[in-house]
């Protein structure tokens, strides 16, 4: 992963530059206050660099570690416990996510293939796996992240799911995104807890492991649909790249398009994806028949907005979905326009 390497080089370079700068500062000043200030600054920057490395490691840990854990996903009106298992066997990555409440729905991933598995034995469909470039997305866009958030590693450690955890906070630099708090395993940097926080400090969404093992006895058989279960590929079609005919007149700082082009979904819908390295906003545009004013809906931390607009004689329906505040969705919808 060249980006990872590049990033680590940058962090090392940055750390050595800061170190040189502080040595230089020490050399040229005898003012104790000035020296103290430099040291505080250096510590803060060091904390931020450390936090970035930890976030990067966290991302890697999801792909590299072997784990079997139970976590709770909760938002205002809903709470679900889920079991997640992951292993890499013979170079093939296996992952399983099971809903432990209600019906025992399972999402399985074998490398780039995602399959939904149901408990009943009524029906199964099979398809060749859709080649989705998971590998490409396993890295945080760290430089992008810094544009939208102030990142801090807290001094105080805590315990989550019986494990020592380090706390990283992502404080939004503007009103267009939520705050995040990550609790990362001190030993292997696995994500143990993730909170999404609103501007008023209230918790919007939480994912928290209640137990996790990093040495589970997993076999390949644990990741194949059991005989008699109903499986369905999650991805209904191969995504086709098409020319992006749309643009944003404005984007919040740090937000950019994840794909250079648009993706064609079924029925003439184009999809674009925006991200600031942490939050994502999906944009869907499709031809429409009836005019529709702007409306915004939410579920948990996810906000969705829709409205129609006209380009020449053609009406389009614009839908945006993302884990961002309402104002962000609304503003993005007003600045969306055809590319000239």
């Amino acid at each position, binding site marked *: 992963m060249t980006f990872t390497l590049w990033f680590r080089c940058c962090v090392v370079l940055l750390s050595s530059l800061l170190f040189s700068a502080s040595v230089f500062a020490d050399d040229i000043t005898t003012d104790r206050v000035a020296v103290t200030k430099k040291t505080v600054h250096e510590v803060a920057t060091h904390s931020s660099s450390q936090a970035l490395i930890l976030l990067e490691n*966290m991302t890697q840990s999801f792909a590299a570690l072997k784990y079997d854990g139970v*976590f709770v*996903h909760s*938002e205002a*009106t*809903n*709470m*679900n416990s889920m079991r*997640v298992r992951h292993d890499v066997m013979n170079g093939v990555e296996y*992952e399983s*996510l099971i809903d432990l*409440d*209600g*019906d025992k*729905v399972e*999402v399985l*991933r074998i490398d780039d293939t995602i399959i*939904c598995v*149901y408990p009943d034995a009524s029906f*199964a469909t099979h*398809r*060749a796996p859709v080649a989705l470039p*998971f590998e490409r*997305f396993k890295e*945080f866009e760290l430089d992008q992240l810094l544009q939208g958030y102030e990142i*801090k590693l*807290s001094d105080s450690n805590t315990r989550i799911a019986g494990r020592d955890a380090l706390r990283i*906070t992502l*404080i939004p630099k503007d009103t267009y995104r939520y705050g995040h*708090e990550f609790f990362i395993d001190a030993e292997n940097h696995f994500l143990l807890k993730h*909170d999404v926080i609103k*501007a*008023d*400090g209230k*918790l919007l969404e939480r994912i928290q492991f209640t137990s996790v093992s990093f040495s589970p006895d997993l076999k390949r058989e644990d990741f194949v649909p059991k*005989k*008699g279960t109903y499986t*369905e590929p*999650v991805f*209904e079609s191969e995504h086709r790249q098409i020319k992006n005919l749309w643009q944003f007149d404005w984007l919040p700082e740090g937000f950019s398009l*994840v794909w250079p082009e648009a993706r064609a*979904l*079924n*029925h003439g819908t184009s999809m674009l994806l925006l*991200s600031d390295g942490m939050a*994502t906003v*999906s944009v869907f545009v*499709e031809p429409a*028949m009836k005019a529709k004013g702007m409306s*915004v*809906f939410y*579920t*948990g931390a*996810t906000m*969705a907005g*829709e409205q129609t607009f006209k380009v020449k004689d053609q009406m389009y329906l614009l*839908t945006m*979905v993302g884990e961002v505040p*309402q104002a962000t969705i*609304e503003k993005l919808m007003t600045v969306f326009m055809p590319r000239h």
Partner: protein
Amino acid sequence: MAALNDHAPESLSSLSAMFDGEANEQDIDRILKEDSAHITKQLEGFHVIQQALTKESKVTVGLQDSFVSSIRAKIDAEDLANQNDADIKADNVLSFSEGAQHKPAWKVMFSSVAVAASVTFVVIFGGNLFLSSETSNVNTLAEVSTPEGDESVAALAELNKEALPADSIRLQHYLRQHAEQAAMTVGQGMIPMARVVSYPVEE
């Protein structure tokens, strides 16, 4: 009826590849040169093997070429009877977002999670959990303004009450697409997929 081994292995190898979606143009040329009844019979064999390997339910046989030929006969008869039938638009078949009776395939995936999603309960968290030990930073979390008040905000769950099933399905489709992309973008493995289970689902 000729058995499998009476045919050129190349064309059957091509058929096996086509069955798996791995055939190339040459394979297809080769298959199309074969007798359709034999091809259908062969595909039935492949299908039965697949069924036995993947399903608990009983394997089925017996459709063979009759189903294919009856469809072909109907198409030919319709073509003869009315040439104009040939220009039926796809829209008539696939009005995805219009008409409540049309439900897209992905809906099936959601139906089972609907039960999980419907059994919800409120979790009350104390406010200000974020940065509680670093109060100096709270101010850096800027207030989010909601320019037009909250009138336009409705829980997605309420959509069902608004008799907009087709629209609701479309939104759910997009929510799912979004969750999948988030799972690939934010570096937290499949954990963002957990949101899908919490999304409100019709039916």
